[in-house]
């Protein structure tokens, strides 16, 4: 006689623990269910209920397996965050350069009265941006060259702490750069007045804000996941 839902319950419990990573949860659900059903099919006794119980018992504690899988998911997520940072910074750089090129093509000049402010804000923009580039590349190289962890141990925790610290500094610098760009664009637009041609700098600023915002959310998501997975390991 078959145990109603014994395998289903086991698979559900394991998959639910991995809900924070939907694609992993879905994939593990299918893999583990296939494994358990095959173990039952391979059991030579005619007692299906006992075979199911054995299959589930032989598979191991779902909480332990979920915790081990979660660590790999976290390592993947941190690598994705570092790649997203590089792409985000590159997109912001292109938007920035595109806007400057457009100013030159349209022969827009800066209001003479505001040139000193533009100079200061421009310096903040440059330094903040290049700082974020260095921090972003540093994060990418650092996390990309670490080995995939076996456990949420102190070594992995330290790696994540360093990665998140530098990522946070990087996004803060990038946001400072985008804010400076916003000020410079506003100064530029105030000197020329609003027209259809103003849409180009406005659009490029929107791209910068969007990229920086998405990147900040990505880093926040990774930070949250670290907390979730730490809880899974401490449970």
């Amino acid at each position, binding site marked *: 006689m078959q145990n109603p839902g014994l395998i289903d319950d086991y698979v559900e419990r394991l998959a639910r623990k991995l809900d924070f990573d939907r694609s992993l949860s879905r*994939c*593990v659900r*299918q*893999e*583990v*269910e*296939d*494994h358990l*059903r*095959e*173990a039952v*099919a391979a059991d030579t006794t005619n007692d299906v209920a006992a075979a199911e119980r054995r299959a589930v018992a*032989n*598979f*191991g*504690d*779902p909480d*332990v*397996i979920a915790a*081990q*899988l979660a*660590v*790999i998911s976290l*390592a*993947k997520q941190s690598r994705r965050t570092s790649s997203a940072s590089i792409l985000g910074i590159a997109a912001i750089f292109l938007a920035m350069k595109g806007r400057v090129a457009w100013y030159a093509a349209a022969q827009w000049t800066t209001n003479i009265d505001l040139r000193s402010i533009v100079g200061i804000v421009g310096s903040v923009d440059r330094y903040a941006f290049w700082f974020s580039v260095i921090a972003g590349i540093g994060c990418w190289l650092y996390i990309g060259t670490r*080995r*995939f962890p*076996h456990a949420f141990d102190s070594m992995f925790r330290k790696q994540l702490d360093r990665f998140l610290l530098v990522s946070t500094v990087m996004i803060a610098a990038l946001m400072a750069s985008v804010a400076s760009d916003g000020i410079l664009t506003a100064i530029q637009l105030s000197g020329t007045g609003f027209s259809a041609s103003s849409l180009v700098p406005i659009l490029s600023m929107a791209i910068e804000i969007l990229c920086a915002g998405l990147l900040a959310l990505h880093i926040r998501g990774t930070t949250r996941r670290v907390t979730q997975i730490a809880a899974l390991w401490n449970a």
Partner: protein
Amino acid sequence: MLGMEGEMLKGHLDMIVLAALSAGPAHGYAVIEEIRRRSGGAFDLPEGTVYPVLHRLEQAGLLSSRWVTADSGRRRRVYGVTKRGDKMLADRRKVWEQFSNAIGGLLGGTRPCKTPA
């Protein structure tokens, strides 16, 4: 809870899984069966332990995977060793043989203590 042998085994799981897959692509259940068969039943870890190892090795580029439909109609994930995985296994094998020879020499060289009269 794993005993001492289990703990020792855990440290070599990557190599064991790579070795089990070196014969050809297989899914998780077949990997476990192959480990049991080739170890003569000596390695009997919880079966679920193999999945985090498979996922980690895939992320590290040592394994690749694809989904197929099994005869039962269920979706099945089949893993295979990549070129990088092959190279890693060959390296690990070499290190293991050196280590095993060294330990074998040490243990084989011990003499039982004489029982006092």
